[in-house]
Structure formats: C-alpha cells, structure tokens
C-alpha cells in the first residue's frame, strides 16, 4: 500500500470501487432500486448517474426477482452487470433467480455458459430496523455451490473486492455491513482488485483464535483488546470470503492457539459459525484444548427497541466471557 493514503469512509470506498469499475470497463453497468436519481439508499452511488448516464446507472422499479434475473441474462449476453439489491432482506424475493439460475447455469449447461454477475447488498442489524429489515443471511448464500460470497470488513476490501468480483467469470455476492458505511479510515490511492484467496489475520495471538467477518470483526477486535488487558493473547481473523472459506488460515491458527471462538451475527442455529465449528471439529479435533464456541445472534426476530436489539446481537462482553472460560477454564 502506498504511503500517501487518504481519509475515506467505507461508504466512499464502495463508491470509489463502483466509480473505478464503471470507468475502466464499458461492459460494466449498475442496476438496482434508487441507485441513480436517489444516489443509492446508502448514498454509495451518489453522482454516478450524472457522470455515467442512465444507460449505465439504471434505476429499476421494485422488482427484485426480475432485475436480478436480468443481471444474469445481461451477464450471459456479454456485459458485466453489478446488481444492487438494497439489503439482504429484499434479496429473499430474488432468491429463486440467484439459486436456481445464477448458481446453476454453468453446471447445467455442462460448462457452456458462465454467469459473470456481481450482486451487492447491505446486510445486518444494529440500526433498530426491526424484524424484517435486520437480517444477516449471508451464511445462507454461503451454502450454495456455484456462488462466491464476500464480506468486506475494511475500506480496502469494500473498494477492492468489487473489482475482484468483476474479474470473476462466475456469480459473486458481496455483502456490505450496513453499520460500517459511516466507518472512517485510511485508503490507498492505488485502486486495484484485492486477492480474495486468503482470510486475513488482523491481530496475531497465542491463546485463542477469534474468527469473524464484516461488522462483527470489530467486536472480536474489541474483545481481544479487553482480553489482552487480562493477559489473554487473542488472534483475530477476518474471514473475508464466506464461500469458499479459507480452511488453511482457520485450521492453521487453531492448531497454533488450540482454542477458537466464532463471532457471527447470523442466528445461531444453522449459522456460518456452525459450519466453521464443524470444520474445526473435522480438521483440528485433536489439536483442540477446549470446545469451539459460537457467539451469534439470539434466535429471535430482531426487536425494534434498542436495548432488546443489542441484547439479541453478539456482544463484546459475551466474547470476552467465552474466551476467559476457555483459557482459564482448562487446557
């Protein structure tokens, strides 16, 4: 990364990625609800309509299933569409197109037709938007063969993963954590794709591994800080890619620390955290000094009231307590 980095927000980083993509490849276009005149419901595409025009920044009607399916068709037709589904909550309406078409075309056709489609959506709770607007279902998408699923937690990834996804011949879903849009940080002036092959060890540690992604990553980091004060040295890993998962990084770290906690905003049962726990069971069972723990959302439709919502979401305190149990508790 170059020395002269610039100040930016996660939101601006996403916008910079979109801008770069539209500028460097005429096959790229952005399509979704309110991406144009409104500037994007999270202001991620502000100004792009004015700069690139209505043919390449396309406001759609409220028709999630069809404009997503049209993204598939346009990708098959030689374009590089970026479909924005405002939030994962509305992607349920487009799920048939994503699961039954985008993910299957290549295989059903015996390799004849690949679908170079990028779908972006915001995910997660924490903004008091209640039960229908607070889902964190990226783990669901990570279940589907044929899809790749990315979860940028940093500014560099928010900008770079979009460019990486656009170079991919197959459908890539990018989940942007809604609560991270205002996050400020440094961004390299060099706009390039980022490798998505490896998870990222954000903090190295000896005593246990905290695995997370997206907005929850920062809860893991806060917990690690608090733990270090108490003399517990936690390693924190940003998974970055949810499908495929970087088993080497996960297992490598757990073999070193012999303990793992997965922090995942999805509901506990059937969460991505469950998959990671199962993989550690399968690949590092004999290395473990304590059972892997999961810190997930409480299994309740998200309540509106702040105190209830916060109680439902993964809490730094719960991570810290679990870590203490594991390290002090045994081994």
């Amino acid at each position: 990364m170059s020395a002269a980095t610039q100040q930016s927000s996660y939101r601006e980083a996403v916008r910079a990625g979109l801008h770069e993509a539209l500028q460097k490849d005429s096959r790229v276009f952005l399509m979704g609800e309110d991406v144009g005149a409104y500037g994007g419901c999270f202001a991620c595409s502000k100004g792009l309509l004015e700069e690139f025009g209505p043919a390449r920044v396309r406001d759609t009607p409220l028709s999630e299933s069809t404009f997503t399916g049209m993204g598939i068709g346009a990708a098959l037709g030689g374009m590089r569409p970026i479909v924005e589904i405002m939030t994962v909550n509305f992607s349920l309406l487009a799920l048939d197109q994503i699961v039954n078409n985008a993910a299957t075309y290549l295989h059903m056709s015996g390799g004849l037709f690949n679908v170079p489609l990028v779908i972006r959506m915001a995910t997660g709770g924490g903004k008091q938007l209640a039960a229908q607007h607070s889902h964190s279902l990226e783990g669901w998408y990570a279940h589907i063969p044929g899809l790749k699923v990315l979860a940028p937690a940093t500014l560099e990834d928010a900008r770079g993963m979009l460019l990486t996804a656009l170079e991919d011949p197959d459908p890539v879903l990018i989940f942007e954590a809604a609560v991270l849009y205002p996050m400020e940080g440094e961004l390299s002036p060099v706009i390039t794709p980022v490798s998505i092959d490896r998870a990222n060890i954000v903090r190295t540690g000896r005593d246990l591994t905290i695995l997370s992604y997206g907005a929850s990553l920062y809860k893991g980091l806060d917990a690690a800080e608090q733990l270090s004060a108490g003399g517990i040295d936690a390693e924190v890993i940003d998974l970055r890619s949810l499908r495929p998962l970087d088993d080497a990084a996960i297992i490598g770290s757990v073999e070193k620390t012999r303990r793992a906690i997965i922090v995942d905003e999805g509901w506990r049962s059937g969460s991505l955290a469950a998959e990671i726990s199962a993989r550690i069971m399968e690949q590092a069972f004999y290395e473990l000094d304590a059972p892997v723990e999961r810190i997930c959302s409480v299994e309740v439709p998200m309540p509106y009231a702040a105190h209830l919502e916060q109680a439902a979401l993964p809490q730094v305190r719960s991570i810290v307590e679990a870590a203490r149990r594991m390290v002090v508790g045994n081994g």
Partner: protein
Amino acid sequence: MPDPEHAIHLLHQMLRIRRLEEKSAELYSAMKIRGFLHLYIGEEAVAVGVAQALSAEDAMVATYREHAHALVRGMPAKSIMAEMFGKQGGCCRGRGGSMHFFDIETRLYGGNAIVGGGLPVAAGLALADKLQDKMRLTCCCFGEGAIAEGEFHETMNLAVLWQLPVLFLCENNLYAMGTALERSESETDLTRKAASYGMRTAAVDGMDILAVVAAAGEAVSFIREQQAPFFLECRTYRFRPHSMFDPELYRTKEEVEKWKQRDPILMFKAQLFANGVLDEARLEHLEQQVAAEIADAVAFAEASPLEPVEDLTRFVYSERSPE
C-alpha cells in the same frame, strides 16, 4: 359538503395525524424515536377519507407508513407513541417500532416493511372471511411503488379469480423513495393496470378529503354488495422526505412547493371557513385538543417502562395453546 359536525370531525382527524407526525419528526431528531420513520404529512386526506367508509369489523393491512391509518382507525396515540419510543406501553411492547403497528381491537394486521408483502396477507384475511361467511372486508394499503412487484400481480389475479372482499387502497404519491412513477411503470395509469385483471377500479384526488370520502364510500359499498375486490387509487403527494435519511435529490423544491399549495388540510380549512362551518375559535379549540392528546401520548411514552431484557425471547413461539 357533509353536515358541519362531520366536516369538523374530518378536519380534526387530519389535524391529529399532521401534528402527530410533526411531533414524531421532532422526537426523531431528539433521538427518542429511532430506526426508520416514514411520515404521512401531505397524504392525510387519504387515510381519513377512507376510514369513514370502513366499519369496526373491517380489517386493515398497511405499510411502514401507517401511523395515520392506525390513528384514524382508533388506536390510541399513546400506544402509537410508546411503540415508537420502543417502550412496553407500545402497541407491540416496543418490538415493532414505527414500521410495525399491530392492534387486535381495530384489526390492524401491521405495519409491513416489505413493499408488496402485505397484499397476499390481506387477500388471505379476506379469504378467511369469505370461507366463514363473515360479511366484512379487508383494506389493504400500499404505495404506487408496490405495483411493480410480482406479488401485486399475483394478488390482483387471485383476488378477482376468487372474488375476495378487499379494498386495494393505492396511495399514489408519485415516488417510490427517489423513483418517479413514470420511471418505474410502462403504464402510469394505475387503474388501467388493475382493470386488466377484471378488477373494479376508481381514481380520486387524494388531496380533496370530500372526494376521497365519496370515492371510498362507493368502493366499499361495491365490495360489500358484490363481495368482490375494488382497486382505489388516491393521487396524493408526500411533503416530507421518504424517511429521515433522504436527501431528496430526485425532486425539486419547486415541485414540492407546488404540491403544498394543495395541502389537504389548508384546502379543507379554507372550504370550511368559506362555508362558515369553521371559525378561528373553533379551529383554535381543535388545535388545543390535538396538542393535548399528543402531549399526553408523549408523556405516556416517556413514562412507560422498557420491556425487560429477560423477555427478549418471548413471542418467538406462542405461549398459549391453540383454541
């Protein structure tokens, strides 16, 4: 012109909505209300006019922009305000918030935050009534943006095919967030679209309270007599941003100002003054009544306790056994 007292009643209802919404915006800035807040200011004549045609047994399914409907259908301002405060005294004990009001008394089945998501539910409520020979209807409110959704199409077809007693109330305020109707629909005459299913339809000036009262009355009597659905388009306008986060880049101040000339409350007030039905004293009295009601509601919301955190996982599954 209806009889004077009824006219005053209509004005009173519109004022209750207007002031409740203004206060809500204020409380949002004061961070007492959080999440999304979608205001109905400018559209009051629609909710009030339609409510006149509905009876107590009728059901309603609304959207996230439902404060007005909840209020005119008879939900106490207290439980509305407390819900927006996220307090236990709210209609949903603070679990729903601004977008999800529910009420057994007035048969309000939400408060739905998924555009188009309420249409099938409304048709299902009407089907239940039909199967149980209950002579009541379900009023289903949605914005013109919902018309592009597949569920609109599926529900129109089934409602006509199965002759379900539903009032499909389309609140056409010309924008879906920042998307103008003509940029989202190939056919902008929405009654034409609904009519293509064999649905009876009408369109009315949603800024003219008396016109809405009349149109809703006819629509509802058709539904009750024919036991068939009706699509009523009310042409109105949202004076405020879509929600509290909207920079309003998609429309001009001039356009908004032009529409404010047709403010349903201002126009009706003028009419009532002209007809001598209303005078300053009476208006002043009304405003005081409304102000008091809202002050009470806010006080109640402030005083209401929070739902205990220990109760977080209540209402995921029913506590009682089925009847």
